[in-house]
């Protein structure tokens, strides 16, 4: 399978009378985008604003962050199963507005969720999102809607905005192209290179997925067992973030740091990227053992992997399930590395891991437990309602995990824990 990303660099974002891409300047007609979104009768109104890097601006509470993208006509479906019809993601050409982001605000989420984008100051330096040009979209849904229907409305608005913006790139020649090509498990001619796969959780059943929550090709993953995906399917809209998104945003599925890194080594001829497995953390023992077993079996018997990289989605149960999957892989002769988040509330290494498997011996440790910032007051806030604006605009302390991207579980984080 081959995916070509046509990269159109965006260095400036502003509102204007029509929507177009002028060189690296993206101009958005607020009214036509608003009308486009309001075609969804579940929406009553939509606010939007722009946040550029370095601005004294804060956005929250974030529902999701997505990169503006559109498929080249005839190359496939945009966000298949959510916006477009079901079709294999990850092949043909996709146009990308690199440097831009659609950041959707959730008007009903409490501040306790701490999902903030900070565009300037010390906290911004730690987040990969602060260097992007954000179109912040604040959909206001019918207040009588059930919560999950309102969330589904936000999801649809997010992907519609992504495509609406990227459409401007269709008739333009890109600044660069990136090609993602792998024949998966049947990849030939690379004898002697380690065969490497990625096993990533995309949901945790500690929270029951909403009936209309769209995670994998529009499915909510309920009742699902692990499934194999081509790496390109993650990059091209086959997977989006679920609602619990603790350290997970769709932006870093589209720009998956681990898949990108595996591809880099693959291109350099150091390893062969043979595939990926998407799985779910469980909420009961049999589900846990079944999913972990099946994921490790796929890595062994379907992908014939020599090594796998594993990540989790969420907190403790996902952490334990990821570790069990890694252990089963190691026991079947597959080398593993896992990424854990900071679980230790007393800052003691003995409390840091929720597993005690000697086989799982290669651990990357994302920190966050003792990093926080005193955020200054800001001039501009993009929030869902006046109370949230008031809460966000003032100076306040915030933990690392409260700023989107800092304690990412998708592999982008540069904040790690050291044992002293």
């Amino acid at each position, binding site marked *: 399978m081959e995916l070509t990303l046509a990269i159109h660099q965006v260095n400036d974002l502003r509102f204007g009378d029509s929507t177009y891409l002028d060189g690296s300047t993206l101009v958005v007609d607020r009214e036509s985008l608003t009308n486009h979104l309001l075609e969804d009768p579940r929406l009553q109104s939509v606010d939007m604003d722009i946040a550029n890097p370095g601005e004294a601006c804060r956005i929250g509470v974030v529902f999701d962050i997505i990169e503006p993208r559109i498929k080249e006509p005839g190359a496939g479906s945009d966000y298949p199963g959510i916006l477009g019809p079901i079709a294999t993601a990850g092949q043909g050409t996709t146009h990308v507005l690199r440097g831009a982001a659609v950041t959707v605000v959730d008007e009903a989420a409490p501040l306790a969720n701490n999902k903030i984008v900070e565009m300037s100051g010390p906290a911004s330096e730690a987040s990969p999102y602060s260097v992007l040009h954000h179109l912040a979209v604040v959909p206001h849904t019918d207040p009588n809607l059930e919560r999950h229907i309102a969330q589904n409305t936000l999801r649809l608005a997010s992907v519609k905005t992504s495509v609406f913006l990227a459409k401007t790139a269709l008739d333009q020649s890109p600044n660069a192209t990136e090609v993602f090509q792998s024949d998966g498990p049947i990849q030939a001619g690379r004898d002697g290179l380690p065969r490497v796969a990625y096993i990533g959780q995309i949901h945790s059943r500690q929270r029951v997925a909403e009936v209309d929550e769209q995670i994998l090709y529009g499915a909510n993953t309920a009742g699902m067992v692990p499934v194999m995906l081509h790496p390109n399917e993650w990059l091209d809209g086959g997977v989006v973030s679920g609602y619990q998104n603790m350290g997970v945003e769709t932006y870093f599925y589209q720009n998956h740091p681990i898949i990108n890194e595996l591809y880099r080594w693959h291109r350099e001829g150091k390893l062969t990227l043979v595939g990926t497995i998407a799985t779910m953390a469980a909420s009961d023992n049999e589900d846990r053992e079944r999913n972990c077993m099946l994921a490790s079996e796929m890595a062994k018997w379907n992908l014939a992997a020599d090594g796998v990289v594993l990540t989790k989605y969420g907190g403790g149960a996902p952490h334990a399930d990821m570790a069990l999957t890694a252990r089963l892989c190691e026991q079947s002769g597959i080398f593993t590395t896992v990424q854990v988040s900071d679980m230790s509330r007393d800052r003691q290494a003995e409390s840091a891991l929720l597993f005690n498997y000697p086989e799982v011996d290669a651990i990357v440790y994302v920190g966050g437990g003792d990093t926080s910032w005193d955020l200054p007051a800001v001039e501009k806030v993009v929030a869902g309602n006046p109370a949230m604006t008031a809460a966000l605009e003032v100076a306040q302390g915030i933990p690392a995990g409260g700023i989107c991207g800092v304690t*990412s579980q998708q592999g982008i984080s540069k904040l790690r824990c*050291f044992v*002293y």
Partner: protein
Amino acid sequence: MRVVHYLNQFFGGLGGEEFASAPPEVRDGAVGPGRLLERVLGQDSQVVKTVICGDNFAAENPDVLKEFVLKEVAACKADLFVAGPCFEAGRYGAAAGALCVDVSAEIGIPAVTGMAVENPGVDLYRQKLYIVDSGESVSAMEATLSKMAAIAAKLSVGQEMGAPTDDGYIPRGILRDGFVEKSAAERMVEMLYAKTQGAAFQSELTVTTFPSVPAPPPVIDISKARVAIVTDGGVVPQGNPDNIAHTAATTWGSYDISKKNDLKGEDYEVAHRGYDTRYVRQDPDRMVPVDVMRELESEGVVGKLHDQFISTSGLANPLANSRRLGQEIAQKLKDSGVDAVILTSA
């Protein structure tokens, strides 16, 4: 700095294993490695007293040795206590670690020691002390003492300690954040590649190994036993009267079931954020099986269901906290005459 140095019989020059029962004695000035210690500490420092004690005596009479050392350290108004280095000598390491902890706690001066990572003193005291990694070979005496001196100098002026690999001490298991150049994804792939090539790699955390908990002796006759239900699944009466936290709980509660044959969903709630609680809220017997226990009680399979069940939330709890909760709960059960416990977990 005025320094008191602790040595075992071997390094103190008394002799080998045949002197292991020697009681503590004190000498003026530096002895053996103490002379090297004095040199690496620099001109302003002086080993004023050296305490020498046999390893067996130290292991068998820790309180006597402690009292002896504390008295000497206090009497000479020392600014620093140094023990060893002990390399692989286990009894020596255990004594040195204990003395360093006691001196710094009770006299309030810095204390430093050195050992091989394998020394049993490391597992006992690494969390409380800076223990320099001496390696196994005594030939590293000078290098080890130099690192101990550098750590002592930092401790005595309250300077922040560097990373274990920079300052040469054995990790104490304290976590600290730091920003690094490479993303987690880059580090993961790099580490995995090294593993597939059989090359060396450095995990960012090592799995902590814990001693296994021995199983208690079996209940001799379960049909006469008083059995209690204990859960970390967070089941509590409506209103959560003890305010048990749903995450990292620091308390537990004990709830009367003496008149209940069955727990009803409307009477209970779940203080736990780590699992899908719908089914337990629907029927709390699924976590606290009072209904089944009553049946077993009436059939005479078990003697008696204890009048209370005990509950806490077992989510994301630091180990130190879990140990305390466990000890408190076990004590309460013992005091209540409970013979056996059914533990349920989320």
